[in-house]
């Protein structure tokens, strides 16, 4: 049974999607999605445990052995991402029930959960597969369902945001497709482990180089690295907030995982970082990203928009970590993938709670919210501190490692800029906290007096995730250890 778990990881949610369509009842389709997702989460936990104990798992889909068949390949790195994706998805799905009930018409709920299941399937598939073309297919599965999910937003601007994301996302995916095509032309294989072996031997290095360029660009678009981020703020702002929490926690993170996979496992560290591309383009883009986007976030008056820009900034940290191409830099990047995924999901869930009760998230009008929604605000504050990187939160663990890594490499300027952008994070998060906690309501109207906390079914998932992130903040070595192991794998290439 346990041998089939890699296939099960994808199948459960994939099968759940059509079942949801058939059920058509809002509540039961949610239950179906929830059950499938929980199961997927348990499967991913088992896989992680197994990988940490026994090392890499290889699974030949349909019994066709690699390299001719499609192979699922699981090491510490993607096992961790699997847990992250399915876990956040499960928690947010639990939370989504009430949140979505309010913002999406009931007759569309089953479609919503169907799209959600497809999206999870796609994301898990990207992570688990060891076949380059399969990555593209799963990427499109997740992307198409994501566009759909975003277009469920209440505001009509969700539609245009979704459309723009669609065009840009398709172009990105097409770039990946071109890249894979050239790789295939140069090596004659699509299996990642096989590619890693054959790329150095390939006769047409120019084709490999073109493939490398297209792949990089495609993935950068999907992971919203500055300046290719422009689709993200609108999409995050206008999507249903549960979707935003889910996307912020998982989607860009999975793309970053793909980036890692291609850079380190397929092309190899020496190849990837031998190119001008990374030092010349990627690192400056990442650094400019986290400085500029933090700056932009300060001026935003819509809480979701502020967090969206902050997300772009955080992606900048992660990519900067990758660009260092050292053991510790990579570890920092991977840890931040996990940590930021949790923190951002928490923040957006808290925003969703506010949206649920207050009806808007216009920051200056959230004065004295602490009195009215104490639990939500406390969760927001805790996660906000995590975003800043206050000690004993997850943000601190990853920023600390990142700074250490850049100092180790002697890149002082990067460390200084990370600190600078942390100061900006203090400003933009602090501003919100200040308004929530200290600013008195100008007029205590009937709707602003008295407590109106979000429903428990939203608070519990929120606090589960806050609790998990707090745990990993205090016990930072747990994530660091897994990430360090993953970094070692990546730097050593696939075995």
């Amino acid at each position: 049974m346990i041998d089939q778990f890699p296939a099960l990881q994808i199948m459960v949610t994939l099968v759940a999607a059509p079942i949801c369509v058939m059920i058509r009842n809002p509540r039961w389709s949610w239950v179906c999605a929830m059950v499938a997702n929980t199961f997927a989460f348990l499967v991913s936990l088992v896989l992680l445990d197994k990988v940490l104990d026994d090392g890499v798992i290889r699974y030949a889909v349909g019994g066709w052995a690699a390299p001719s068949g499609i192979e699922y390949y699981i090491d510490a790195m993607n096992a961790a991402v699997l847990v992250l994706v399915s876990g956040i998805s499960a928690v947010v799905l639990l939370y989504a029930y009430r949140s979505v009930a309010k913002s999406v018409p009931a007759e569309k709920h089953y479609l919503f959960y169907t799209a959600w299941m497809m999206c999870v399937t796609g994301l898990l598939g990207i992570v688990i597969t060891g076949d380059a073309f399969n990555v593209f297919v799963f990427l499109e599965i997740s992307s198409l369902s994501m566009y759909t999910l975003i277009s469920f937003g209440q505001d009509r601007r969700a539609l245009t945001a979704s459309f723009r994301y669609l065009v840009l996302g398709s172009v990105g995916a097409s770039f990946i497709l071109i890249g894979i095509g050239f790789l295939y032309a140069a090596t004659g294989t699509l299996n990642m482990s096989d590619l890693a072996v054959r790329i150095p031997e390939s006769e047409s290095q120019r084709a490999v180089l073109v493939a490398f360029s297209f792949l990089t660009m495609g993935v950068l678009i999907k992971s919203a690295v500055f300046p290719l981020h422009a689709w993200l703020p609108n999409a995050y702002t206008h999507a249903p907030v549960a979707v935003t929490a889910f996307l912020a926690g998982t989607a860009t993170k999975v793309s970053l995982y793909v980036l890692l996979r291609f850079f380190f496992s397929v092309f190899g560290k020496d190849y990837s970082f031998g190119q001008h591309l990374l030092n010349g383009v990627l690192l400056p883009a990442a650094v400019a990203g986290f400085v500029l986007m933090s700056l932009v976030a300060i001026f935003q008056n819509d809480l979701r928009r502020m967090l969206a820009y902050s997300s772009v900034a955080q992606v900048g940290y992660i990519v900067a970590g990758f660009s260092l191409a050292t053991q510790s830099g990579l570890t920092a990047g991977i840890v931040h993938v996990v940590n930021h995924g949790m923190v951002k999901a928490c923040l957006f869930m808290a925003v969703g709670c506010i949206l649920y009760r207050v009806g808007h998230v216009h920051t200056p009008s959230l004065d004295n919210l602490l009195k009215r929604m104490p639990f939500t605000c406390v969760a927001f504050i805790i996660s906000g501190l995590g975003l800043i990187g206050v000690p004993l939160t997850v943000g601190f663990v990853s920023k600390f490692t990142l700074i250490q890594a850049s100092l180790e490499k002697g890149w002082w300027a990067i460390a200084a800029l990370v600190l600078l952008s942390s100061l900006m994070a203090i400003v933009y998060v602090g501003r919100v906290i200040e308004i929530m906690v200290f600013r008195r309501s100008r007029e205590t109207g009937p709707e602003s007096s008295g407590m109106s906390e979000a429903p428990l079914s939203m608070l519990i998932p929120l606090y589960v995730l806050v609790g998990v992130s707090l745990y990993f903040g205090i016990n930072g070595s747990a994530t660091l250890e897994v990430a360090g192991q993953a970094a070692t794998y990546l730097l050593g290439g696939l075995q």
Partner: protein
Amino acid sequence: MMNLMAPPFLYLIAALICPFLPSRWRALLLLGIPVFALMVMLAYPAGEHVVWSVVGFDLTFMRVDKLSTIFGIIFSIAALLSGLYAWHVRDTVQQVATLAYAGAAIGGVFAGDLISLFLWWEGTAVASVFLIWARRTPAATATGMRYLLIQVLSGVLLLAGLLVHYHDTGSIAFEHLGLVSTGTFLIFLSFGIKCAFPLLHNWLADAYPAATITGTVVLSAFTTKMAVYALARGYAGTEVLIYIGAVMALFPIILAVVEDDLQRVLAYSLNSQLGFMVVGVGIGSDMSISGSAAHAFCSVLYQGLLFMSVGAVVYRTGTSRASRLGGLYRTMPVTMLCCLVGAASISAVPLFSGFVSKSLILDASGYNGNYLVWLALLAASVGTVVHTSIKVPFTLFFSHDSGKRPAEAPVHMRLAMIIAAFLCVIIGVFPGLLYSLLPFSVDYHPYTFDHVLVQFQLLLFAALAFVVLKKIGLYPRTVASTMLDVDVIYRKWIPARLPLVARRVADLNASARQSALGLLGNGYGVIERLTRPGAPLARGWSVASMMFVVIVLMCAVLVLNLL
């Protein structure tokens, strides 16, 4: 589990449960925890305890020796007294912040390594800013933000310094560092900000008057003394500190003399007192370090006492402006007497606490052979008389009658002040009690005839000068005004010139466009123009512009790669 019983954690746990208690229990908690934590603290034997391994580092949370213990004791006393003084406060935010702040400060002095020191360092910054914000006025919010940024900057410098230091030496132990490398220099700078070195000092006079009445009392005790401790631990005997300290003791004086806000006057005098301690640390002999510790101990008490008495006046009259007060002795005699005790202590009148601690530092600097510094400290002692000992009680309680007849301070405030005053006198009369706590054993007798004589000469002639100047009308009357300090640079001058700079940049930009032509299109500009809402960076892009960026970048990548 027993590790959680370490005093700093006790405070933090108390701060965590505090919001969930009924209001009177919260106030009692503020009294009980300091007592309990003090007992726990004294029960720890010397050595390193509570070592936790986090992220591969061994963090020592309780390094107990005589230097840390004396600061721990005075911080506990300060927490207790301010808890009593704040008995009337029912604001949960302030109570939690007070507990967390005291806990972080105590954690700071017991931290055995730089990383845990950094944690507490930032902890004091974050916790204390709530005491300012709790005033809940727009100005307090702005002031708090300035304060927080400076404090966090100090923390960031500490973090950067410790990383570099760790990189250099492979050690995170918080022992003697010395000014030897970039890392230790950064750490020094970080300590310097919290210790309010000259030119880095303005947060102190800016923020303390902006806190709540009780918040000011709490603020006065911890942050700066923790910095003095950190300097004594890490930079004892660093010569440059002697000069920094001498300047620091002198220059707040002239600002304080004409300052109208009495809480700010006290903040300046606090800054000047810190100068004495910094000199003591800089000299680095056993006697001078002990002197610094002793002076820190006494200064927490008398400075707290002075802040408490001014705070009591604010509590009853709503203002701390000298120009609006005067003649309050008629109805607030207890507050007046306590204030006088504080004034006598700070100006080192024999039989009061300042006398037995300040003379340690003065004598140490005299023996050290640095006569100019010794003279500077002597001058600063006179300065203390000018701006605090005479000015504060005189303008508050005597001087011209403002017509205000406020009631006496509430009983819990009076009690807190009387206890503090009592401690000041006890230490002054029985200096042996204090000397037994010092990090190095000192054989020092403050009460020699010579010493008492010169002290009275110094003080009484200063008083005579006051009388004479008053008579000939030279002594400045305080009027409602703002005295410029160094912070005018970043609060006024730079903001005032920013538009100018921005215009320059815009001009440059325009001419660059003309010369380098429109080839580059709209793709560049000043950052602020890019980032405000609705600006190119901060609005949704159309598909066309997104695609444009994609293609330009793709071309760049391809060209770069094929090169």
